[in-house]
């Protein structure tokens, strides 16, 4: 298979399966709570319904209002081309960015959606200002996680990190790596709005991302919603393929191994979703101003991983 085709396959996997993962998580949680729950395909139906609705643009909307969802959706389409989603070797555009480049593309998506909504209405500006406030506490952890990975693997490239970790099993059980995984997991819960944070949902006291979408309707709302599903999917696959479980990624471009890579990715993601369901069903939501404590602890784990790297003189042999 041509590398460009692999690129398209990665994008399509992200676009096609990201709503399914949300549906599965909701279904599992409903079953744990003894409810019947919505169908696992409900997020698809929702997105299709939003596309059919009438588009209304507020009178005081600024120039970014319309282009923000489109730009952030395009960011989430670009990211699968430069990250190991189902295929573990660099695709044609991958050499352009490393971890920090990927973080910049994520930042661009949240930047446009923030300036589009910051002065629009009461709820959207709440969402935007909260996203910026807590984002500034989440970024240091992300940077430290990248530093930690760079220390272990001597590189800042997700593909090489994946290869190095998959080959050196003893590095995976080193305290440095385990702490990095823990810190990134906490960050993942924050970024995907799971329960200790619960930034999604319509509760005024906790909403962050959902608040930004309050004024959107129709196509633009559908794109924002779909974009947020894709963001979680990309972050989860980076967590799995680069940090936590680097095996089972397709290493050549034959049709068989690409299908194998897709299936293993979905299986790994199911395990991660079970972890999410466990966390969501056992923890309580934190109050909004306690989120900084939560993010501080993830920062602590990330820094301790680097400190432990130096204390033990590198990863164990």
């Amino acid at each position, binding site marked *: 298979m041509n590398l460009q085709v692999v690129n398209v396959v990665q994008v399509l996997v992200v676009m096609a399966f990201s709503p399914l993962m949300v549906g599965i998580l909701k279904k599992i949680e409903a079953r744990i709570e003894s409810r019947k729950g919505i169908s696992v395909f409900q997020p698809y139906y929702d997105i299709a319904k939003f596309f059919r609705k009438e588009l209304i643009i507020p009178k005081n909307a600024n120039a970014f209002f319309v282009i923000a969802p489109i730009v952030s959706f395009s960011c989430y389409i670009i990211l699968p081309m430069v990250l190991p989603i189902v295929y573990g070797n660099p695709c044609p555009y991958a050499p352009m960015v490393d971890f920090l480049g990927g973080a910049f593309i994520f930042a661009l998506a949240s930047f446009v959606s923030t300036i589009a909504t910051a002065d629009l209405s009461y709820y959207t500006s709440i969402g935007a200002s909260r996203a910026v406030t807590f984002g500034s506490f989440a970024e240091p952890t992300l940077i430290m996680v990248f530093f930690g990975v760079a220390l272990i693997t001597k590189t800042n490239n997700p593909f090489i990190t994946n290869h190095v970790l998959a080959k050196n099993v*003893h590095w995976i*059980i*080193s*305290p440095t790596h*385990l*702490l990095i995984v823990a810190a990134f997991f906490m960050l993942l819960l924050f970024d995907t709005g799971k329960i200790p944070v619960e930034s999604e949902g319509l509760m005024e006291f906790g909403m962050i991302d959902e608040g930004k979408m309050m004024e959107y309707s129709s196509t633009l709302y559908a794109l924002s919603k779909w974009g947020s599903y894709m963001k979680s999917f990309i972050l989860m696959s980076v967590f799995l393929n680069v940090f936590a479980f680097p095996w089972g990624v397709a290493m050549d471009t034959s049709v068989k191994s690409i299908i194998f890579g897709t299936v293993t990715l979905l299986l790994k993601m199911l395990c991660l979703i079970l972890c999410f369901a466990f966390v969501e069903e056992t923890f309580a939501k934190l109050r909004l101003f306690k989120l*900084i*404590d939560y993010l*501080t*602890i993830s*920062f*602590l*784990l990330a*820094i*301790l991983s680097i*400190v*432990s790297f*130096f*204390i*033990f003189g590198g990863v*164990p042999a």
Partner: protein
Amino acid sequence: MIEAIVQFIGVLILLTAFEILAQSYIRPMINTVAIQSILLAVIMVITGILENRLDFIILAVLTIAVRGIAIPEVLKKDVKKHGIWVYREVGTRVPSLVIVGLILSIVGYVIYRAAFSVMQGDLPFILFLLGFLVIIAKKNALAQMVGYIVEENALLYAGITISHMPLILEAGIFLDLLALVLAGVILAAEKDYGVLELEELVG
């Protein structure tokens, strides 16, 4: 492999120290220090088996009995007696305390490496500094006692990693701690207005 496990337990001990630092409720704090002592005992057992030394095993059993079970139980009894301590330390500053702890651990690492470049005692040294920080930052006497136990744990940890102390010295540390807790409990029994306050421990 075993080295990696010992290292990981060492980092876990450091994490429990941070948990004590960030925790505002007294009872979980005492439970955490009990867990810390048990983790330390696990390290002792592993080192004892590796180096074939019986006194480390004895020490581990003593650690679990005294610090893992007895002292936490006594302290928890005190928490129960004075209802005010069940609740919490007033005014916790989790982010700033954790950041100060992190800075302290990095400074501790740098100082230790500058002084002793060969010996692997960074973790106990950092733990020692964190114990100090717990004592400084907490206003409640029980929490300060927990900080003292953290420091004693750090000494014991240093004893098994840097140089091998004789058993009698290590036993002495236990007696120290027991005496402190006994004094605290007797003070608490003597007075009835929530004796274990800061003023009682200030000279």
